[in-house]
């Protein structure tokens, strides 16, 4: 590294404005062109997983990192989006493209209701409440096999072709570009949101609820905004997930506590309250998971240990390394 001395100083060429633009361009170019250039289905799947999980974690971060709200039933909210879109196309032939919107709106609605009953509580109580809301959603899906096919699994049609682009799952690259487009919209919206006065209100909530209240901030209202908006985006991602993954079942691994834990780990490893940390962490963790497939359950042991390590010793997560790379 030629920049070693400069890096420790925290200024200079590596940290200059131009270098930062160059870094963004290189990263974006890798994100957009790497899967096309390599053109290998296995690698494309990994990129799709990483972007998808990264987005789900960034949305989770909007709640925990910016407002201190822990949605421990998060996977249940993803399930609402996934099943709304999937069942819509399965039973009522509603286009999966519209499903992205209906999935988002339905999840926002459920998120709003969950917010209304949760917002009198705080901290751990929110985690407990949302956990049981998520479980109630999951068990309801698994108990209505006539409608949702429950544990038998619901097969979900692919996206119909649009503008002459083939979405038959024959060419996964198109699914990758779809999730990139969704990602650009979602990350842009989240970024705008946390930079706006909403973001300031969220942070005030997280730091000191009582003080924010006495300064005249309507904490309940902003909690509800945060929860509903995050749920909307979670629903959109759930809907995308459904048509990409092609078969849904309400198992704890897919829509229960294990999925929530997976996403929570990505958010915490990436760094709470950063949004972008989640995306980097998702690439790191999902890449790791794939590269070390041979390790089997050891990968999850390492994941858990990593979460413990972050909680104890690296409380900013990957974002703590930002000063060296940015």
């Amino acid at each position, binding site marked *: 590294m030629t920049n070693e001395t400069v890096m420790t100083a925290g200024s200079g060429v590596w940290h200059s404005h131009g270098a930062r633009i160059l870094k963004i361009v290189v990263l974006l170019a890798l994100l957009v062109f790497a899967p096309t250039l390599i053109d290998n289905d296995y690698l494309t799947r990994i990129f799709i997983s990483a972007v998808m999980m990264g987005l789900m974690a960034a949305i989770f971060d909007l709640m925990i990192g910016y407002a*201190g709200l*822990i949605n421990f039933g998060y996977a249940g909210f993803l399930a609402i989006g996934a099943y709304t879109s999937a069942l819509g196309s399965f039973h009522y032939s509603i286009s999966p493209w519209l499903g992205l919107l209906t999935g988002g709106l339905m999840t926002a609605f459920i998120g709003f209701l969950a917010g209304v*009953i949760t917002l*009198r*509580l*705080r*901290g*751990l*109580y929110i*985690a*407990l*409440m949302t*956990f*049981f*809301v998520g*479980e*109630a959603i999951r*068990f*309801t899906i*698994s*108990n209505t096999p006539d409608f949702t096919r429950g544990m038998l699994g619901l097969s979900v049609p692919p996206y119909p072709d649009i503008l002459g682009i083939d979405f038959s799952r024959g060419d996964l690259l198109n699914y990758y570009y779809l999730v990139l487009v969704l990602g650009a919209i979602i990350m842009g919206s989240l970024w705008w949101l946390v930079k706006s006065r909403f973001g300031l209100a969220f942070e005030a909530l997280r730091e000191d*609820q*009582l003080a924010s*209240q006495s300064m005249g901030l309507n*904490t309940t209202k902003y909690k509800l905004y945060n929860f509903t908006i995050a749920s909307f985006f979670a629903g959109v991602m759930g809907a995308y997930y459904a048509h990409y993954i092609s078969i849904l079942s309400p198992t*704890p691994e897919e829509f229960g*506590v294990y999925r929530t*834990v997976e996403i*929570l*780990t990505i958010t*915490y490893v990436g760094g709470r309250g950063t949004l972008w940390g989640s995306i980097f962490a998702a690439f790191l963790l999902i890449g790791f998971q794939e590269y070390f497939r041979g390790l*089997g*359950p*050891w990968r*999850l*042991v390492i*994941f*858990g*240990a*990593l*979460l*413990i390590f972050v*909680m*104890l*010793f690296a*409380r900013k997560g990957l974002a703590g390394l930002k000063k060296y790379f940015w």
Partner: protein
Amino acid sequence: MELSLLLDPGILAQVLAQGLVRGSMYALMAAGLSLIFGIMGVKNFSHGELFMIGAYVMFFVTGVMGLPWPMGVAAAAVVLFGFGVLIERTLIATLRKRAGRDWLLDAFVLTIGMLVVMQNLALILFGTERRGVGGLVDGTFVYGPIIITYERMMIVAVAVAVGLALWSFIRYSDLGKAIRATSQDPGAAQTLGIDIQRIYTYTFGIGAALAGLSGGLLISLFPAHPTVGFYPVIKSIACVILGGLGNISGAIIAAMLLGVVEAYSSFFMSGGWQNVMTAVLVIVILIVRPSGLFSSSKVERA
């Protein structure tokens, strides 16, 4: 099942007995979780994994080494006490020092990490095979319409004994008094010369021992396997919320109530819908009475 059967006193009695057995199991599972929550404020999400380790200890002591079952249960409690102390000293105490004011939410996430590590280590060490110990006690108790195996009666007896022992320990022993003082006001307790760190370590150790004990005792119903803790942890959390967070006797009464309600509701709905009902019950309680069914104190809201 016909609804009219519910009016039959014989069936009512049998269902009530089953509900009480089920409730005793829930009470055993929930006691350790409630203790740790009540004293430290930590919601230990790895409680089910401590239960799982207890089941494995039981399996090795009784199933492999062939020792009598009470020794297996005792071994499970002792091993888990040591393990709980170790976890508290190395992980939770470290977090408490580093995380500052709002450390409890972080402690919850820390225990999630512990859950993932323990569950997958168990998978690596023991595989997915279910390792049970067949009936600890033989025979069936029959009294009129009530039919219960002696094993289940033994579970009820142990649950009652553990409940009484825990209650008298907290109430009368010096350590128990120090534990209560710490839970009421850590600052004042410290001023009076109580070593809070030590109290937290013992509390977590005892809570873990209770989880291990229930994992060992219930092995014939829940054979040891890596994810066996999933069901106990959900039921325990439900009992702890219904009884009032941190209210141990409340949690035990709630466990009994939940057991009986579930036993009766098995007339109306399948096992799957019972899970929905339990979740909805907890949600409703959190909405209307966040401090639990039996608590007079108010929880922090807003």
